[in-house]
């Protein structure tokens, strides 16, 4: 069973190859069959291997399978080796399982699109890249998957390439993540020069021997790795590509921007946990970035009217929580939140996609309204997803994953009150914008004619995801009730346990406050958008609120800031050098040669008498030499 591991990434690759090479000549049914089938099969294999893994854990703690040696130069010998340990099993499970559900949904969603095969080819390639990323046993192979993911995000965001706006969004995503990728590449170079290996297990084993806690080198490596993670995971300085990336089709948003790609950074940091434990400064930076991002993205989400942009900002915010957990050393909590988030965010994106599709590509949620009774399936699934996002206590999975992060924010050794306060405020905001989204979309009066309802191909994945959005939380229960730690026990062989430090109040107080924050957010939104709309109007009249609204709506002006900081100086500089000084040298050379050639061409006058004159002059010169010497 375990030797089927290689099939998990290879099946989507096969699907991609078939679809991209022969996609033009296949019927839509067979395209869907191949596209969905490849990912579904690897999901099936993953579940089988996963069950096997759980029942009969391998002695080494992981399964590895070497396909072949990629490069062999002296000691440097990266292989195409897939390694499955608990951490990658979680990721592989999420990628293939949710990926398969999204593919099923896409088969219905993209039915009318003329580039059906291109879509599934890109999706399959994306799943393949992501699987390579998480299954890689060395950093070079991981980097291959990492770049493949970047490429596929470009292909899929710009999928509807006829609209230049989408192409712009795709380029933005590509370039922004590329900044992080460059930092990561430098990190890999440094790791190789210090460890003389890119084997992940080697690095994790050797790091504590090679470096003291807080060495400069290891801190730099950790920070560079973090920069790579930030780029992919859309965290603070590089976060503004994600909202624009909503230009792609909704299943793409679900697959790339909610469930898998953006979590590559989380995976990288979790995978390199030893390095980050050795570099407290870098780990603190992770936590700070996470905290700042979750707050900033939360505020921005409150102001958006495009339903997908709300979800995009909420994704950034939720990944902020994961980063915060990683920074606090609560590795398992971060991974748990990743898994739960993948379920409910995929669900929300897919449901939003269904709504948008039904309402004739209407993205503005203020023009939706009153869909509660018209689309009951979508409504209930969306509600469950929203509940999870808002971390509704006890009944939603989101509560069980987010609550530990809030608790660790203060109680962990690296935590403090500020982190906790930010996280709590974030929870409050999350509840507020989630509730706002639900109220505005599903309650109130109907504003847009609805088209044909989504078929069962699209609703079935929603139901499955909704089921998991509720149930998945119960595999890890807080310490004070149940203390059921199936998930973290599973992960502890690879991820260290969180070190508790600060003496604080008992955990139930934290849970109570988190619940209060959630309910507070819901109440405020309910007041503003349902009960008392006049309040909004009054808010709109105050200039401060309007300014803040504008500021948050534009994502804290990061686009403007980068425009001023980088784009403007660059265009200014390139304007100065419009004539390209270096090029002037070369054009100068050609200019001189042309002049000289013109000069010489005067001698080629075609006049025979001048030629004879030349002969005579030559004779004179030769004779003169004869005489003189």
């Amino acid at each position, binding site marked *: 069973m375990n030797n089927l591991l290689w099939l998990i990434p290879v099946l989507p690759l096969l699907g991609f190859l078939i679809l991209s090479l022969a996609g033009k000549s296949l019927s839509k049914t067979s395209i869907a069959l191949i596209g969905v089938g490849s990912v579904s099969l690897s999901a099936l294999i993953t579940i089988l291997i996963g069950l096997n893994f759980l029942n009969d854990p391998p002695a080494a703690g992981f399964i590895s399978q070497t396909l072949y040696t990629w490069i062999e130069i002296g000691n440097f010998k990266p292989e195409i080796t897939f390694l499955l340990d608990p951490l990658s099993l979680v990721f592989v499970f999420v990628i293939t399982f949710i990926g398969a559900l999204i593919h099923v949904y896409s088969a219905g969603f993209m039915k009318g699109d003329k580039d059906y095969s291109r879509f599934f080819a890109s999706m399959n390639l994306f799943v393949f890249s992501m699987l390579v990323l998480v299954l890689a046993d060395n950093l070079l192979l991981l980097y291959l998957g990492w770049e493949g993911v970047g490429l596929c995000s470009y292909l899929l965001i710009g999928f509807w390439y006829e609209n230049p706006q989408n192409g712009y969004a795709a380029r933005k995503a590509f370039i922004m993540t590329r900044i992080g990728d460059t930092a990561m590449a430098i990190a890999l170079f440094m790791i190789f020069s210090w460890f003389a290996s890119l084997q992940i297990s080697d690095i994790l084993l050797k790091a504590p021997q090679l470096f003291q806690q807080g060495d400069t080198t290891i801190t730099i490596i950790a920070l560079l790795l973090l920069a790579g993670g930030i780029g992919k995971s859309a965290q603070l300085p590089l976060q503004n590509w994600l909202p624009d990336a909503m230009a792609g089709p909704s299943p793409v948003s679900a697959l790339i921007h909610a469930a898998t790609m953006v979590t590559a950074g989380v995976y990288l940091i979790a995978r390199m946990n030893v390095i980050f434990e050795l570099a407290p400064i870098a780990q603190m930076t992770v936590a700070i970035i996470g905290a700042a991002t979750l707050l900033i993205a939360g505020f921005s989400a409150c102001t958006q009217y495009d339903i997908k942009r709300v979800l995009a900002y909420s994704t950034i915010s939720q990944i902020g929580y994961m980063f915060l957990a990683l920074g606090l050393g609560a590795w398992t909590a971060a991974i748990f939140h990743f898994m739960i988030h993948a379920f409910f965010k995929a669900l929300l994106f897919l449901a939003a996609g269904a709504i948008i599709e039904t309402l004739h590509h209407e993205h503005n949620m203020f023009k939706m309204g009153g869909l509660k009774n018209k689309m009951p399936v979508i409504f209930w699934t969306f509600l469950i997803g929203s509940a999870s996002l808002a971390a509704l206590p006890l009944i939603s999975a989101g509560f069980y994953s987010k609550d530990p992060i809030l608790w660790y924010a203060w109680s962990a050794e690296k935590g403090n009150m500020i982190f906790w306060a930010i996280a709590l405020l974030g929870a409050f905001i999350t509840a507020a914008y989630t509730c706002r989204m639900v109220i505005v979309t599903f309650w109130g009066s109907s504003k847009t004619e609805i088209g044909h309802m989504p078929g069962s191909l699209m609703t079935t994945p929603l139901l499955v995801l909704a089921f998991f959005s509720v149930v998945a939380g119960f595999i890890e229960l807080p310490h004070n009730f149940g203390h059921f730690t199936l998930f973290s026990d599973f992960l502890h062989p690879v991820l260290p346990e969180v070190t508790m430090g600060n003496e604080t109040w008992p955990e139930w107080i934290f849970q109570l406050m988190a619940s209060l924050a959630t309910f507070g957010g819901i109440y405020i939104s309910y007041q503003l958008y349902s009960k008392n709309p006049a309040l909004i109007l009054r808010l709109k009249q105050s200039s401060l609120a309007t300014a803040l609204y504008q500021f948050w709506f534009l994502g804290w002006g990061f686009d403007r800031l980068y425009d001023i900081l980088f784009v403007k100086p660059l265009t200014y500089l390139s304007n100065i050098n419009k004539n390209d000084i270096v090029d002037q040298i070369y054009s100068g050379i050609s200019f001189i040669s042309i002049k000289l050639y013109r000069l010489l061409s005067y001698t080629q006058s075609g006049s025979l008498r001048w030629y004879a004159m030349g002969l*005579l002059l030559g004779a*004179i010169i030769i004779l003169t030499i*004869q*005489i003189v010497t």
Partner: protein
Amino acid sequence: MDTIFYITAAVSVFATLMVITRHNPVHALLYLIVSLLSLSVIFYLLGAPFAALLEIIIYAGAIMVLFIFVIMLLNLGKETAKQEKEWLKPRIWVGPAFLSLIVFAELFYLIYTSVPETNSAIQTVDSKMVAVSLFKPYILAVELAAMLLMAGVVGAAHIGQHKKSNLHRFLKETDDL
């Protein structure tokens, strides 16, 4: 003997000078024949009777007749002479003449400063010696000269033929150059 040489030398130089300065091509041609004949005398004096004969027969005879034919064919008469007069202005010939003078001065200097040979007696080289050496060591060169002459004949026949120009109509020039 020496006197005859100097007289013929003077005649040939004078005649050559006239060739390059005449306006009328026929006059120039006649002067050239004079120059060739005087050169043939010099050849004879230098002990090369065979070369002297060839000079008269082939050069002054055959080649010059060709020139005359061409001049007749082209009907170059008084008009050409008038045109030549216009072309041959001092402004045009002073420079080249000066350069030529320099070349001559240098040659003169070189020839007279070279080491004089003690044995300066000139002996006759008769036609038999020429013939023997021509058909023994130089036989290959003779064959080559024959081929050259044939090429000359074929080339002249080819170039000289009057063809109707069959240029493409776009390439035809309306006014002559």
